[in-house]
């Protein structure tokens, strides 16, 4: 494993207005790695993704992708560095058709998936390409939210709770997609409550509590850390 991480987060602090929500978060992701953030609701997982992406603007600390500083970039320049964001609420646009939703994010590199490849991976989206985006089922909307980032050629996927509220068969399907993406060399930062799902794809875990990282361990040590997980996650 190389020593310079692809995405480097050091002592990241962030604020929602006056309220201090991230307290010195450290996080490294190597190229091609899948890293999962675990933690209770309100632990700061989504906030961490939003702070990395630059949606949350009030931040201090170090945030670098391939050595390039992200903190100084305006929001619309961040995607061009290769970060692709799939929000928790999925963010499918009601006034756009499925195909328009898919084509919406501008390409950031030439090696993204072609529309044909995407429709092969997600046949439902092809069938329903002329429907209004929000008329899709929850699972299909999640597929669409992931698919539209794959088309852009982003190299790092920030994926916020992709399995939330979905039926087990759809969760399984999304798991297959993530495994396929890993094989293509995609780097993934996954926020997930469901660690049974996450263990199938994650190379490493980070555990968050109250806006801080409290532990990190490789995927195969998940069982060894189960006691702390149960305590922190309250499951």
């Amino acid at each position, binding site marked *: 494993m190389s020593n310079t991480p692809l995405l480097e987060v050091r002592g990241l602090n962030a604020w929602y207005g006056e309220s201090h929500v991230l307290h010195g978060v450290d996080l490294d992701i190597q190229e091609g790695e899948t890293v999962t953030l675990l933690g209770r609701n309100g632990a700061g997982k989504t906030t961490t993704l939003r702070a990395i992406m630059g949606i949350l603007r009030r931040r201090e600390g170090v945030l670098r992708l391939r050595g390039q500083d992200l903190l100084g970039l305006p*929001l619309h320049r961040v995607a061009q560095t290769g970060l692709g964001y799939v929000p928790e609420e999925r*963010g499918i646009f009601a006034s756009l058709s499925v195909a328009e939703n898919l084509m919406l994010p*501008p390409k950031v590199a030439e090696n993204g998936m072609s529309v044909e490849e995407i429709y092969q991976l997600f046949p439902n989206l092809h069938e329903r390409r002329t429907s209004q985006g929000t008329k899709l089922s929850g699972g299909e909307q999640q597929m669409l939210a992931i698919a539209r980032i794959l088309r852009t050629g982003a190299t790092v996927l920030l994926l916020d709770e992709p399995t939330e509220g979905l039926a087990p068969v759809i969760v399984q399907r999304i798991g297959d997609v993530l495994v396929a993406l890993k094989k293509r060399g995609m780097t993934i930062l996954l926020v997930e409550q469901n660690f049974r799902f996450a263990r199938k794809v994650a190379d490493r875990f980070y555990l968050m509590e109250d806006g801080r990282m409290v532990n990190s361990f490789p995927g195969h040590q998940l069982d060894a850390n189960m006691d702390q997980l149960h305590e922190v996650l309250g499951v």
Partner: protein
Amino acid sequence: MSTIFGIPAPAFYGQLLIGLINGSFYALLSLGLAVIFGLLRVINFAHGAQYMLGAFAAYLLLGYAGIGYWPSLILAPLIVGVTAVVIERTMLSRLYNLDPLYGLLLTFGLALILEGVFRYWFGAAGQPYSPPSQLTGAVNLGFMFMPIYRGWVVVASLIICLSTWLLIEKTRLGAYLRAATENATLVQAFGVNVPRLLTLTYGLGAALAAVAGVLAAPIYQVSPLMGSNLIIIVFAVVVVGGMGSILGAIVTGYMLGVLEGLTKVFYPEASSIVIFVIMAIVLLIRPAGLFGREE
């Protein structure tokens, strides 16, 4: 003489045409307002002043530079669009994170200043502006005589409204605009330069008002208050159509123009309030407007 519902046919068609003309201006102006409100969430009170600026730009281009109607139809909206871009960059863009009331107050203030300045320079009386020679005279439609210029206004406004609608509904830029109207932050996180999109949208909305101003110059006189007389009705049109609804603004513009014209035929006393009565009824029954989405 033939009659329609007991009204002499020429009077009926005459008012119908006037309704269509007024409707053309309502549609053009409410379209711009709807585009601006949809994305910027700013109620652009300067819209009437920008319409007036368009008419004055054509008038001044002719008077000082000898530039005629046809070039003005392009140049005046460009000039007004550029001033709107400057206003958005230097002033309006600072207000997006504040209560929408601030944008309304700023544009209202700008409208008062612009109208005041032009009244100081040109007086309140209207200045005449002749239609281009190609569009003078009238044509016999069989059932009535129609001034050619008025027919042109209806056709031109239809073309502009349709093109704007196509731009928003069928192009990639339009998809950015629609998506940013729903969730600007996410669209920006995808790498779209949303601040620039906001600037362009305000410029486009103002340019639409200016086109309407140039089209209006030969029909109404060019006067500093021509916009404030019209804009109140246009706001009613936008409310009836549904704030931010593009199609709603266009359809409602023509519909209410024609309805107002027909009211003049059948019950003239009500013609100046009919649009506001309809607005009140629509607000009671469908607060989001005829084409608006409940939020």
